[in-house]
């Protein structure tokens, strides 16, 4: 029993509730939000140290032992993602001080983000399938409100798509959870894994796992992503950054967790399917990114393509690939948040989202230009930056398993993303400066300061990949050998 495991859930929840009472005091709201996110990062570090020295930490809520009670499980994989989420959210809060208009701030923006963070952290830490659904819903409900907050015409249109697709997939989620409970009689992830192992390969289980694959793929934007580029581009940059960094990654986390811990016994059907979906996502997402001219849509397709790339690791499921997937997930959360935040500044500076109407930003804000350039290189995976080790490991893992098509798709993706981001750079930053339209925010360049920590992180994570690697290794150990997780939860 370790109550620290509940802290990453409780801190955002308490903050969210507190901020409802303070919704007219904007300055107070901002600082409390930032402090809460930093506190959460601190708690995650404590939790990470505990996990490193004492192994997986669990908390049986209200003292009921699993499989009957609901259990929270902090393993290295979950803790790393909770920590990254806390850091990303802290930077996004800092950015929102200037990047979100006061009207939105007054209408519970900060509370909603905290509720969403509670859902995100809960999804990472839960050890129970139904609880995962609840945390998903908490996260999605808050994201519905965040995406429509402000009420522009574009937001209403995109919200409708977003809500419809998510309500549909949530319905499927509950249905498959019920189906699974009917088939095996438990919803605790560790217990599920055990029971499914005892039952041996069976048709119904494969059907349920395929249903869950569809559900999680919709959330992650794996293949079923048609709703994503529009929806993520509609709200202001700080919200897009949170969505792009966190929401799809939660879906990806659920996919990895489900198909390495629970449904790993029979890999011929589902893992092949994941591989095919991954390659298709890479191609469609990559070409989508290349073909667009709207900054936010390009970034949206970038998010999709990376999800496709991470799912290659899941299709291969060997140690190197999964280690790479953990590394790449952490990197992707940070770098996607950074890109969306920088794109927000770019749009504010030029007054348009279309790159063929921009130009010459390099001359009047060189810092923004070079930060964007470095972030692009990190996405692509140029060696000293954080994109490289993860990408290398995933490609290496695919080659080890003889999956040459997957490896080739991963390399092709690099080229496509490079092209799409350099296109923004060439059209947006080079060329003649055009007369900027009326500025939306006061001094958008000051926002660069709040993106700087993320920038620093992607450099550090790349340069000091060696000392970070043991943590990724710990995470990958549990993914490759589920019995560690099962024993820690069921304590047999």
């Amino acid at each position, binding site marked *: 029993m370790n*109550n620290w495991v509940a802290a990453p859930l409780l801190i955002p929840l308490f903050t969210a509730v507190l901020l409802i009472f303070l919704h007219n005091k904007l300055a107070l709201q901002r600082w409390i939000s930032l402090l809460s996110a930093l506190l959460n990062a601190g708690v995650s570090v404590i939790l990470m140290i505990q996990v490193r020295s004492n192994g997986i930490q669990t908390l049986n809520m209200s003292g009921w032992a699993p499989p009957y009670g609901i259990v929270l499980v902090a393993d290295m994989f979950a803790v790393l993602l909770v920590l990254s989420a806390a850091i990303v959210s802290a930077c996004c809060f800092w950015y929102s001080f200037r990047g979100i208009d006061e009207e939105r701030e007054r209408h519970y923006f900060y509370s909603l983000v905290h509720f969403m963070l509670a859902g995100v952290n809960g999804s990472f830490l839960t050890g129970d399938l139904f609880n995962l659904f609840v945390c998903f819903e908490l996260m999605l409900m808050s994201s519905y409100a965040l995406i429509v907050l402000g009420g522009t015409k574009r937001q209403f249109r995109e919200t409708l798509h977003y809500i419809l697709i998510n309500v549909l997939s949530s319905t499927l989620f509950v249905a498959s959870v019920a189906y699974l409970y009917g088939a095996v009689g438990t919803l605790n992830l560790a217990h599920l894994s055990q029971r499914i192992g005892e039952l041996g390969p069976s048709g119904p289980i494969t059907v349920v796992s395929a249903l869950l694959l569809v559900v999680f793929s919709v959330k992650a934007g794996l293949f079923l992503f048609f709703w994503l580029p529009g929806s993520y581009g509609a709200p202001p940059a700080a919200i897009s950054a949170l969505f792009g960094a966190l929401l799809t990654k939660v879906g990806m986390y659920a996919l990895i967790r489900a198909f390495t811990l629970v449904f790993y016994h029979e890999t011929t059907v589902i893992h092949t399917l994941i591989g095919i979906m991954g390659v298709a996502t890479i191609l469609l997402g990559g070409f989508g990114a290349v073909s667009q001219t709207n900054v936010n849509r390009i970034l949206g397709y970038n998010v999709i393509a990376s999800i496709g790339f991470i799912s290659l690791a899941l299709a291969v499921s060997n140690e190197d690939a999964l280690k790479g997937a953990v590394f790449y997930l952490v990197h992707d959360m940070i770098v996607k948040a950074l890109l969306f935040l920088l794109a927000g500044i770019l749009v504010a500076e030029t007054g348009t989202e279309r790159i063929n109407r921009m130009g010459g930003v390099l001359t009047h804000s060189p810092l923004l230009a070079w930060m964007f350039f470095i972030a692009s290189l990190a996405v692509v995976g140029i060696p000293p930056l954080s994109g490289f080790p993860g990408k290398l490991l995933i490609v290496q893992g695919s080659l080890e398993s003889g999956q040459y098509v997957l490896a080739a798709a991963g390399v092709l993706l690099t080229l496509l993303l490079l092209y799409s981001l350099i296109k923004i750079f060439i059209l947006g930053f080079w060329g003649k400066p055009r007369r900027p339209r009326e500025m939306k925010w006061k001094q958008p360049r000051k926002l660069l300061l709040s993106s700087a920590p993320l920038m620093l992180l992607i450099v550090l994570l790349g340069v000091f990949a060696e000392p970070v690697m043991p943590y990724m290794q710990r995470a990958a150990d549990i993914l490759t050998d589920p019995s560690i997780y099962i024993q820690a939860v069921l304590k047999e």
Partner: protein
Amino acid sequence: MSKGSDIFLQNVSKVVVFIVLAFALYLFFTGHSSPGGGFIAGLMSAGALLLLALAYDIETVRKVVPVDFKLVTAAGLLIALCTGSGALFFGEPFLKHAFGYFDLPLLGKTELHTALIFDLGVYLAVVGVTMTILLTIGEDN
């Protein structure tokens, strides 16, 4: 519906609202170890307020219950969270509840437990959310 359009509905609901609220109260207290609880009692109470809103109008409901329902939601969440986290200070797992038997005047030997306080939080949160939704939709007319 225009104000005061249906005299029958109005007079009946004056009585029925109290019956519904009393039943909600019963559900709330019976909920710990038999069907009922904060959630369903909250929905019931919101139903009673909705009946008032239908028989009279939303302004009447605002006058009868002059609170900001968003704050009611927040207060409910806060109570529930605090009760759940109370266990942390006693070195117990999160959400662990405590109970004891007390001799109360009139009621005699009664079981009092912290789960009831948690349920009060749930009750307030449900009433708050439901009424916020209903009033928001109602206003759009």
